[in-house]
């Protein structure tokens, strides 16, 4: 006979328990009684519900073998003598029973707390009621300034309400932060336009003229509002257990031992309802540990609760907040930066050698290292740790890297030595990083520490590097992806190798990039020849070589933007970007541009973007060469050139360098005698100045050298390796590069010249190629079955006189930047 298990409650912990128990011992016949009308969902992310995330997307439900979930059917009584749980409609006998009933929202006894417009913040149903009530209303008050209260405030803000937080404690998140940390957090939150009053408690609520008025414990301080949300804490839902005589803790919660067993040996309690040795835990991580303990026990194991790590790291209203280990101790050292809004506190042993705990507000980057070091040596110089600076420290073997799943550095290093070679494998093998994910940067660091070399293979389908594939294509003359992967790869390809091979084929054979099989290889930007934006529309950037444009053409751009209702912005590359174009409008936009003598430009893709210029000798008093003409010539020569990464360039007419050429992949600076050529510069995440390759050369030498530089780079660089990293990676660096492409030490210059000549000869306007080809045009529709219908889900709103994707622009706040910490309570009322 199969064993019968009844679980009361289908929340986050209950669901984790079901997963664990079905995995460890599938012989249980499980019935779950769930009060809510929907299966388990991610309550931690509840406010995301107002950020457009649907109830389905929050759902944690999955089909588990041998588990029957009875939704909307709460348990009403437990008969421990008969060993059965009763609901309104049925009776469910059990061999083992698990309480996972969680908590209910605590509403302090207060007159008017039952009025219409007063809510709690706990379930999706609560949120739906709040949303319905908020419709057409303006203002909301959240009672509670802890984790839950800040989440609720986020929810009200997302609903577009003016939001006021009222917290009884003297500062925000008083359970996790000290006064200074709470002060910095308040500073961040007030900058978002949310009002915060601490040291304030509601005393009564009354209905006044269709609105609500809450009086407080502070004389003359009252809040007029449209709705009030209680988010001031939770209490364990232990009534059902009390009713059937199971022991409860002094402060509530079902009393259990360290194996989660209650006073009845056949009954367990897990999650927020459990008072383990009298202590209730309101976080999900300890609940998950309890779920694992009971699953192990039911499979015959001997697991006990490993102790709760109450460390938390959260992003609340966009602010990083973290707390780990001890809250206070013999010695504490703090760092406060009111200008950047960061606060850090480290709690140390009295001899200042052992880290006991601490907290971070505003910048939680050091959190993984610090949390893992709790109980061990302080992992670096205090000043660096506190200010969030660079810390170079090796963790002790015993340090816990993943606290959610209790994985130590020693276990991770062991897994690396046994053959785990990337984060995904480490996650699968050790479970580290599979819950909150905050330790993933540490995992990467440990992989490096463990000597794992980063493979140069393009992806799982090609063991070769990009440079090797380039050579293969060049030598074999292969012209299709399918032939290349059949002969030199495995599988059917992916989003890494397909665009890489497409780029190589384009560099070497110059057909239209959407011709035949190549169309399926292109990333969406190359497939639609425009830049995909976050809401599914595209941006169009007409090519303006060298940044030189006639008034007539400027007017055409304006007219096109007006006709198709596009947002316009001047780019950093001396062009004009038009955003918000729908797929089906792209060919129409290109037609107008082509008719006016433009081509659309490569503002996307791994290709030459722009060649910027200053005005040079034509206008400038200082110019020594015609930089504009040089920039135009270079841009027209290299346009459409596909490369391992994007390519940017600039030409300055004198040493004043107004075009910022040294921040480019190849930059040209005029001299009195000719041109200087610099290569390997870039802006971006890690800016780098380009290095001087040639000086005082004539135009012909300059262009020939750039030809060779680009083709040598395209032939030998790795996927997504920019010219700077490529030059740095060449053995011998810039001097070697000069030997190869100027002195022709390898004897390959003739070949590089021929490759570039072929590119220049075969260049054709890719956008014109589409509008002249009915078959390619057919793809430019939102729907294959409704070519005339635009995507109805795309919506815009108007900000600063232009259109923006709906719901994405931050409301601007005119609030002044607060300097200093507001730790003293303001006494004025509202």
């Amino acid at each position, binding site marked *: 006979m199969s064993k019968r298990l009844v679980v009361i409650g289908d929340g986050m912990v209950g669901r984790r328990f079901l997963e664990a128990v079905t995995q460890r011992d599938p012989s249980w016949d499980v019935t779950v009684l769930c009060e809510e009308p929907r299966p388990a969902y*991610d309550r931690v992310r509840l406010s995301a519900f107002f950020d*457009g*995330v649907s109830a389905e*997307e929050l759902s*944690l439900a999955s089909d588990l073998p041998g588990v029957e979930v009875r939704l909307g059917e709460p348990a009403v009584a437990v008969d421990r003598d008969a060993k059965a749980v009763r609901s309104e409609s049925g009776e469910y006998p059990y061999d083992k029973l698990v309480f996972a009933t969680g908590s209910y929202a605590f509403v302090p006894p207060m007159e008017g707390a039952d009025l219409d417009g007063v809510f709690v913040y706990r379930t999706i149903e609560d949120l739906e009621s709040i949303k319905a009530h908020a419709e057409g209303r303006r203002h909301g008050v959240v009672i509670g300034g802890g984790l839950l209260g800040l989440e609720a405030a986020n929810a009200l803000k997302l609903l577009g309400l003016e939001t006021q937080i009222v917290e009884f404690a003297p500062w925000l998140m008083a359970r996790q932060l000290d006064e200074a940390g709470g002060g910095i957090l308040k500073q961040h939150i007030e900058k978002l336009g949310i009002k915060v009053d601490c040291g304030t408690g509601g005393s009564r609520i009354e209905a006044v003229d269709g609105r609500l008025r809450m009086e407080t414990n502070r004389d003359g301080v009252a809040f007029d509002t449209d709705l009030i949300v209680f988010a001031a804490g939770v209490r364990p839902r232990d009534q059902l257990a009390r009713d059937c005589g199971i022991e409860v803790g002094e402060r509530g919660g079902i009393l259990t031992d360290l194996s989660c067993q209650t006073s009845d040996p056949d009954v367990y309690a897990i999650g927020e309802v459990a008072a383990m040795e009298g202590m209730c835990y309101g976080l999900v991580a300890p609940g998950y540990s309890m779920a694992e303990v009971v699953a192990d026990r039911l499979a015959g194991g001997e697991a006990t609760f490993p102790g709760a790590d109450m460390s938390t790291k959260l992003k609340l209203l966009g602010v990083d907040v973290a707390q780990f280990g001890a809250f206070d101790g013999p010695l504490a050292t703090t760092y406060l930066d009111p200008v950047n809004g960061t606060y850090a506190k480290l709690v140390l042993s009295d001899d200042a050698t052992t880290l006991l705990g601490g907290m971070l507000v505003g910048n939680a980057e050091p959190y993984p290292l610090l949390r893992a070091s709790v109980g061990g040596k302080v992992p670096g110089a205090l000043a660096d740790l506190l200010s969030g600076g660079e810390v170079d420290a090796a963790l002790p073997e015993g340090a816990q890297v993943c606290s959610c799943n209790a994985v130590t550095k020693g276990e991770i290093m062991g897994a690396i030595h046994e053959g785990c070679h990337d984060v995904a494998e480490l996650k699968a093998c050790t479970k580290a990083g599979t819950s909150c994910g905050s330790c993933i940067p540490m995992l990467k660091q440990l992989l490096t520490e463990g000597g794992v070399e980063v493979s140069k293979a393009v992806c*799982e*389908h090609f063991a070769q590097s990009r440079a090797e594939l380039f050579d293969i294509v060049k030598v074999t003359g292969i012209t299709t992806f*399918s032939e290349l992967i059949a002969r030199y790869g495995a*599988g*059917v*390809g*992916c*989003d890494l*190798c*397909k*665009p890489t091979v497409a780029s190589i084929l384009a560099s070497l054979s110059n057909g239209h990039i959407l011709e035949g*099989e190549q*169309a*399926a*290889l292109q*990333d*969406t930007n190359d*497939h*639609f020849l425009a830049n*995909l934006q*976050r*809401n*599914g529309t595209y941006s169009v950037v007409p090519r303006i070589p060298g940044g030189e444009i006639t008034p007539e053409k400027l007017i055409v751009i304006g007219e096109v933007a007006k006709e198709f209702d596009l947002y316009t912005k001047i780019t950093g590359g001396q062009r004009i970007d038009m955003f918000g174009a729908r797929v089906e409008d792209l060919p129409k936009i290109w037609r107008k541009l082509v008719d006016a003598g433009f081509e659309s430009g490569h503002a996307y893709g791994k290709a030459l973007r722009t060649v910027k210029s200053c005005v040079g000798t034509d206008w400038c008093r200082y110019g020594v060469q015609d930089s504009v003409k040089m920039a135009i010539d270079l841009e027209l020569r290299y346009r459409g050139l596909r490369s391992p990464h994007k390519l940017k360039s600039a030409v300055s007419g004198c040493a004043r360098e107004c075009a910022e050429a040294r921040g480019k992949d190849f930059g040209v600076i005029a001299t009195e005698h000719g041109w200087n050529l610099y290569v390997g510069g870039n802006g971006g995440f890690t800016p780098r100045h380009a290095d001087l390759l040639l000086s005082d050369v004539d135009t012909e030498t300059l262009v020939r050298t750039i030809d060779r530089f680009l083709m040598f780079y395209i032939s030998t660089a790795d996927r997504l390796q920019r010219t700077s990293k490529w030059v740095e990676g060449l053995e011998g660096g810039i001097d070697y590069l000069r030997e190869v492409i100027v002195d022709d030490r390898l004897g390959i210059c003739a070949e590089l010249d021929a490759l570039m000549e072929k590119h220049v000869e075969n260049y054709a306007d890719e956008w014109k190629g589409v509008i002249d080809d009915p078959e390619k045009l*057919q*793809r430019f529709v*939102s*729907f*294959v*079955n*409704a070519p005339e*219908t635009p*995507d*109805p*889900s*795309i919506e815009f709103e108007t900000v600063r006189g232009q259109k923006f994707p709906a719901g994405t622009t931050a409301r601007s706040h005119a609030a002044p930047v607060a300097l200093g910490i507001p730790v003293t309570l303001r006494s004025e009322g509202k």
Partner: protein
Amino acid sequence: MTEPRFESICDFDLLIPGRGAAALLGDGTQVAVFRLHDDSLYAVSNRDPFMRANVISRGIVGDRGGEPVVTSPLLKQAFSLKSGVCLDDETVALEVFAVEVVDGAVRVGAVSEVKAGA
């Protein structure tokens, strides 16, 4: 058992092997239909659950360890074409739709397999 209601989308020949196309169903649902190189067909929700834009049909298809996948063109998460599950975050999934070819026409089930099977 009720048969799912199917809607004709387009001629099979109109689909480019290795590429997707979006279709608008009668109830306003947007579906991304993919024809792979072996001429197999898959249909999943067109809505990127991370960025909440209807763009999945414009992703690159391929395989991960043999599992057919489409990669979102926005932030490049891979989704199984068979189950809809996101391989980079298994808590997230695309809805999967039944799809078939009848007399050269591609037809998509208006009722998803996920919903029908729940």
